[in-house]
């Protein structure tokens, strides 16, 4: 009981994180354009490296003839695949509008490509969250 009260007291005495404009804009920019959340906070090298990593995964995934999932309510893995792909932000929008990744290719490296694209989206979300942590002062 005493421990619970101590935890509550510490939580209430901790300074509240101010929700600044940059703390909102950085993760959104980072999601839309990989690395942009870091670049707009002048973390140039981190931003460029994140952008390079996500874009290389996405482009190589397309090159390996990976599938880009559309929104669907079918198989659970297809739904999760869509959310993974959607994490790439504008890259996903461009790929869908250009109809890239639509061919059904029964080839093992095409399956690699599909996974590359999903992981690019998931890593981009991790990057966007990191941009938020920097903007909100939780990380230097």
């Amino acid at each position, binding site marked *: 009981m005493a421990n619970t009260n101590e935890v509550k007291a510490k939580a209430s005495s901790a300074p509240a994180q101010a929700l600044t404009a940059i703390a909102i804009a950085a993760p959104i920019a980072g999601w839309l354009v990989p690395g942009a959340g870091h670049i707009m906070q002048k973390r140039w090298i981190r931003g460029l*490296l994140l952008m390079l990593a996500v874009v290389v995964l996405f482009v190589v995934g397309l090159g390996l003839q990976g599938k880009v999932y559309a929104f669907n309510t079918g198989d659970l893995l297809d739904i999760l695949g869509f959310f993974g792909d959607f994490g790439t932000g504008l890259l996903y929008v461009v790929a869908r509008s250009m109809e890239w990744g639509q061919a059904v290719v029964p080839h093992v490296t095409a399956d690699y490509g599909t996974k590359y694209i999903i992981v690019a989206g998931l890593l981009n979300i991790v*990057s966007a969250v990191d941009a938020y942590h920097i903007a909100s002062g939780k990380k230097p």
Partner: protein
Amino acid sequence: MILELSHFSAALLFALCASVVFGITQRNTPREMLRYGAYCFALFAAGVIVAGWVMWLIKR
């Protein structure tokens, strides 16, 4: 554009990109980022080699 990659090179490229993101996002200073990224890459690469040998043993 159609790319042809071997299993190993595809796994190493994946490991490199994932390690860069993990290193940058999971640590605070550049030195720690570099060390953690290299650590993740080494674990990925070692995991690929170990998994390859395990699959070879299963096949026998």
